[in-house]
C-alpha cells in the first residue's frame, strides 16, 4: 500500500496557487464530495444525542403525560443510585471483557493452527467462519433452544449419549441457562466472535516476514522462542485491532441478552437496561439520563481506544 502520509504530501495541487477567490473555490470543490456524508452523519447521529441530552433533564414518563416538565438533575440522581444500573455497568464490563478475551485467545490458538499447511486447511477455515455468518438473533435462538435446553438440547443430549456409552443411565442434565446465565450468553457470543478474531489474527500471521523467522530457526531458536519474541510482537497490533473492534460491537450487544435470558438472572447489560427503562417503563427522562451517562463513559473509554487506532493508523502511514 502506498503510504497515506506520502500521498497526502504529494497529492495537493502542484499548479501554482491561484489567489483569493479561486483558491477558496478550489477548496470547496475538494470539500464538496465529503459534505453529503458528513452532513448526513451529523444530522442522523449527533442531533438525536442533543435531544437525548435535553430529555435527560426532563420529567417525562409516557404513562403520565401531564406531568411533563423540567426535572433538573433528578434523573441523573436516580440513575446513579439505581442498583440495576450499577449491576448493568458491571454486567456489561464482564460480558465484554469475557467475550473479547476468550475469543481473542481461542482465535489466536486457532489462527496458529491454521497457519500451518495440512490436508483440508481450506475446509477447516470455511467451517470456522460459519458461526460468524449466522444472523445474531438466529444464533441466540439456536443456542437457547437447540443447544442449552435442559430437556432436548444438544448439550444434554450429548451428555446422555456419552453416559449411555459407559452404561450409566443417570447422566447429569444441567439447566445451563439457569445455572450459569451470564456464562451462557458469553459462550454463545464467544462462538460467534472467535471466527472474527481468528480471521484478523490469521491475516496478521500471514503477513509475518518469513525470512527473518527462518533465519532465527537456523540460528537455533525453538518454536516457543520464535513465538514469544517474533510472532507475538508482530501480532500485537492485530490483537489490539481485534480487541478494539470486538469491544465496539460487544459492548452494544442486545440480541444475545434479549434472546437467551431476556436480561434476567443478572445478565441485563447497559443497552438492554436502557431499552427496558424506555420501552417497558416508558420513563423517557430516566432512560435519556442513563443514555447520557453511558455516552460519557463511552467517550472516556473511546478516547483511549481511538488513541490505539490512531497509533495503528500512523504505523500504517509510515510504512
Amino acid at each position, binding site marked *: *500500500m*502506498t503510504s497515506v502520509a506520502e*500521498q*497526502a504530501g504529494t497529492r495537493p495541487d502542484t499548479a501554482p496557487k491561484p489567489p483569493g477567490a479561486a483558491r477558496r473555490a478550489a*477548496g470547496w470543490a475538494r*470539500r464538496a464530495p*465529503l459534505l453529503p*456524508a458528513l452532513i448526513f*452523519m451529523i444530522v*442522523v447521529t449527533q442531533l*438525536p444525542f442533543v435531544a437525548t441530552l435535553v430529555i435527560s433533564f426532563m420529567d417525562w414518563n409516557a404513562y403520565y403525560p401531564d406531568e411533563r416538565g423540567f426535572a433538573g438533575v433528578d434523573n441523573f440522581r436516580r440513575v446513579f443510585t439505581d442498583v440495576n444500573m450499577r449491576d448493568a455497568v458491571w454486567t456489561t464490563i464482564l460480558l465484554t471483557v469475557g467475550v473479547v478475551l476468550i475469543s481473542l485467545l481461542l482465535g489466536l490458538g486457532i489462527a496458529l*493452527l491454521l497457519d*500451518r*499447511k*495440512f490436508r483440508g486447511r481450506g*475446509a477447516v477455515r*470455511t*467451517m*470456522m*467462519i*460459519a*458461526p460468524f*455468518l449466522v*444472523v*445474531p*438473533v*438466529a444464533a441466540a*435462538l439456536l443456542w437457547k433452544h*437447540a*443447544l442449552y435446553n435442559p430437556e*432436548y438440547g*444438544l448439550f444434554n*443430549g450429548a451428555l446422555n*449419549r456419552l453416559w449411555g456409552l459407559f452404561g450409566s443411565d443417570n447422566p447429569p442434565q444441567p439447566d445451563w441457562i439457569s445455572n450459569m446465565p451470564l456464562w451462557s450468553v458469553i459462550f454463545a457470543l464467544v*462462538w460467534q466472535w*472467535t471466527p472474527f478474531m481468528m*480471521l*484478523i489474527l490469521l*491475516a496478521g500471521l500471514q503477513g509475518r516476514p*518469513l525470512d527473518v523467522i527462518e533465519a532465527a530457526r537456523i540460528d537455533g531458536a525453538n518454536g516457543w522462542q520464535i513465538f514469544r519474541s517474533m510472532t507475538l510482537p508482530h501480532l500485537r497490533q492485530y490483537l489490539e*485491532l481485534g480487541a478494539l*473492534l470486538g469491544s465496539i460491537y460487544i*459492548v*452494544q450487544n*442486545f*440480541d444475545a441478552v*434479549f434472546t437467551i435470558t431476556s436480561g434476567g438472572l443478572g445478565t441485563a447489560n*447497559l*443497552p438492554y437496561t*436502557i431499552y427496558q427503562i*424506555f*420501552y417497558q417503563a416508558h420513563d*423517557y427522562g430516566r432512560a435519556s439520563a442513563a*443514555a*447520557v451517562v453511558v455516552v460519557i463513559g*463511552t*467517550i472516556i473509554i*473511546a478516547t483511549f481506544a481511538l488513541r490505539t*487506532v490512531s497509533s*495503528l493508523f500512523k504505523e500504517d502511514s509510515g510504512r
Partner: protein
Amino acid sequence: MTTTLNRADPAGAVPRKKDRGGPWLSLLAWVIGILFVLPVAWMVLTSFHSESDAATNPPAVFAPLTLEGYREFFSGGASPWPPLLNSLTASVISTLLVLLLSFPAAYALSIKPVKKWTDVLFFFLSTKMLPVVAGLLPLYLFAQNTGLLDNIWLLIVFYTSMNLPIAVWMMRSFLSEVPVEMLEAASMDGASLTKTLRSVIAPVVMPGIAATALICFIFSWNELLFARVLTATVAETSPVFLTSFVTSQGLFLAQLCAAAFVVSLPVLVAGFAAQDKLVQGLSLGSVK
C-alpha cells in the same frame, strides 16, 4: 485471502528438524473446526427433522428427513414473506445509499484529500463507538410525531447512518491503493473526472466496493434492536419476526431451526462468497 490459501506452505517450507506434533496439530485443527461448525450443522439437520424427532433426548441424529419444518414456517402461521421482503428492502436500499454517500466522501479523504482529513476520518469512526441505544429514544419520538413509526424508510435511514462510517473507512483504504502515478498520468493526458473514475479508479477499487457492499448488507440484515422498537406489523424485519415466532406453544424446534436457517441463508451465502474480503472489510480496511 485466496492468494493466502494458495500460497506456498509457510511453516512447512522452512526446513524443520522434526515436526513431531504435525499430524496431531492437524487433527486438533479439524476437531476444533468441526466443533465450531457443529451448532450450524445441527441447526440445518434439525430443520429437516419432524418436530417429535427434534425434541428427543438423546438426540435422534439419523431420524428420517422431512420438509415439515419448512412447510410449517412458510405456511403455518403468519407468513414470513413480508418480513423477509422488508429486510431485503431495508438492507439493499441502505447499502446503495451508503455506497452513494461513502464513495465521494472517501474520494475527498484520499485521492484529493481535504485539509484535516484524518480528523474527519476519526469523526466518522467515533460515531461508531457511541452506544446506538442512546439515539433510540429521540428517533422513536421523532418517528412517533411524524407518523414514521412502522415505516421501512426510517430503518433505511438509520441503517445508512449505522454503516456509513464503516464504509467510509473501508473505501478510503481501497481508494488509497490507487497508485499516484496512474492518477498523475491520467491528469497529464487531460482525462476528465468521469474518465479517470471509470478507467483508472474503478478497476482498482471494484472488489473493495463489492466487499463494502456485502458487509453493509450483512450488518443491516442482522440488526434487531432498532427494528424491534421502530417497526410493528407492517415494516417488521426478519430478525424481529424470528423473536416473535418463538412464543408459540408446543413443539417448535424443527420449525425454529428452519426459520433460523432461512433467515441466515442470505448472510451465509454473501459471507462465503466474500470470504477472502471479509477480514479486510471487518477490520475497516486496515488488515489486508
